[in-house]
């Protein structure tokens, strides 16, 4: 089970956190990963100066723009799924 927490604090909200959440949700739906990936929202992760902050499994924090969500998912999430 992979938890993806997307920051919806002030800065990330303005940078399009919702776009990121929707994109992630649609990917999860498309690939039928509902039982393997949970998308959550959270408050400030302290990465306000970059793109939208996204935390994976309480450990790694990534900074991703809306248009890179698919890439991020393929590179960072798909690999973890196999484990």
């Amino acid at each position, binding site marked *: 089970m992979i938890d993806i927490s997307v920051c919806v604090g002030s800065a990330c909200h*303005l940078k399009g956190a*919702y776009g990121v959440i929707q994109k992630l949700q649609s990917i999860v739906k498309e690939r039928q990963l509902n039982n393997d990936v949970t998308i959550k929202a959270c408050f*400030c992760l302290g990465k*306000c100066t970059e793109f939208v902050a996204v935390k994976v499994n309480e450990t790694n924090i990534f900074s991703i723009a809306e248009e890179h969500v698919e890439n991020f998912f393929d590179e960072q999430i798909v690999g973890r799924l196999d484990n």
Partner: protein
Amino acid sequence: MSYFIDVAFDSVHKYGEELCGDKVEIIRNDDCTIIVMADGLGSGVKANILATLTSKIAATMLSEGISIEETVDTIINTLPVCQLRNLAYATFTMIRIQYDGNIYVAEYDNPPYIMIRENRCLEIEKREIVLCGRKIKESNFKLEAGDVLTIVSDGAIHAGVGGVLNLGWQWENVAQYLVRVSAKKKCAKGISKELIDACMSLYAERPGDDTTVVSVKIKKPEQIDLLTGPPKDKGDDGYIVKEWMNGKGRKVVCGGTAANIVARELDREIKVSMDLIDPEVPPIAKIEGIDLVTEGVLTLSKALKIIKAYVDDFDESNIVYDLNAKDGASRLAKMLIEDCTRLNLWIGRAINPAHQNKDFPIDISRKLKIIDELVFVMENLGKNVQKKYT
């Protein structure tokens, strides 16, 4: 028991006039609140001057503890005499409410006040005194929590004359309407606004006379402890959260980082809601035992906008805000308007990393400014505000 006196008023002026001939003056003292509504003879500039002088003199003198006799005498000898009608005249209602609930009312030629307790219109015994040849009705009684007292100018009683209604609205009908309204509105502003809107409809948006409604609602004190922004010094986190939790009020956190700190210090889980109700307002979160958890500056500035629009009688922007909407800003605005007589603010001055982002439109000074504005509108609503910078 010390009550909170929630006072609000709304006015519309006669169609075609630029000034209102009714004037309301409210003075809050340490031991009492003085409310005066004056209705100047005629309409427009002349009426406005008469009403302004009357209400200002009356409120100032009464709040300084000067007797009603002397106050009336001063008003009558000060008002300029109308050349056309050769008289100086403004009707008035003066109210003095002590915070223990004792109320004194002096009425001169205005429609009688409407006193509502437990969904019933109360009849209050009045004494008549003659001062400077004018008959003034005095009354004294004791208010209780939940009581609603409303004064209206004759424009409200006559609403609809010559248009929708032959005889106008009549005092009894206004009183009945108010009984219904006060049962469903929690604050004075809601009541005065609803009644003035009804008058406007009866006048078909073209009032035939200046119309004013002043509502007073007696409330038990309700506090809100609002924590916003992390303290400047991280070492203070624990102490500040503890102190804030010790406050007697309902607990509100505005700020993602502050919310994280609260959750950490209280060792409780924070759950951010995924529902985006309004794209302009970030979602709320839940921490057990905390009444409302929201994002910071964006929510605060939207809540401020809502409160301002709510307070402003006829907002130019014409945006209708729904106080019952479920997004964070509407919830916050509703709590601050309806369930708060005293607001305790804990304002954190830490520089948020977000503030250093050149693309982020809001920096710490902007945030402090929004809070200052919020304090200003809350004080205008008659609420006590305490600020504490951390």
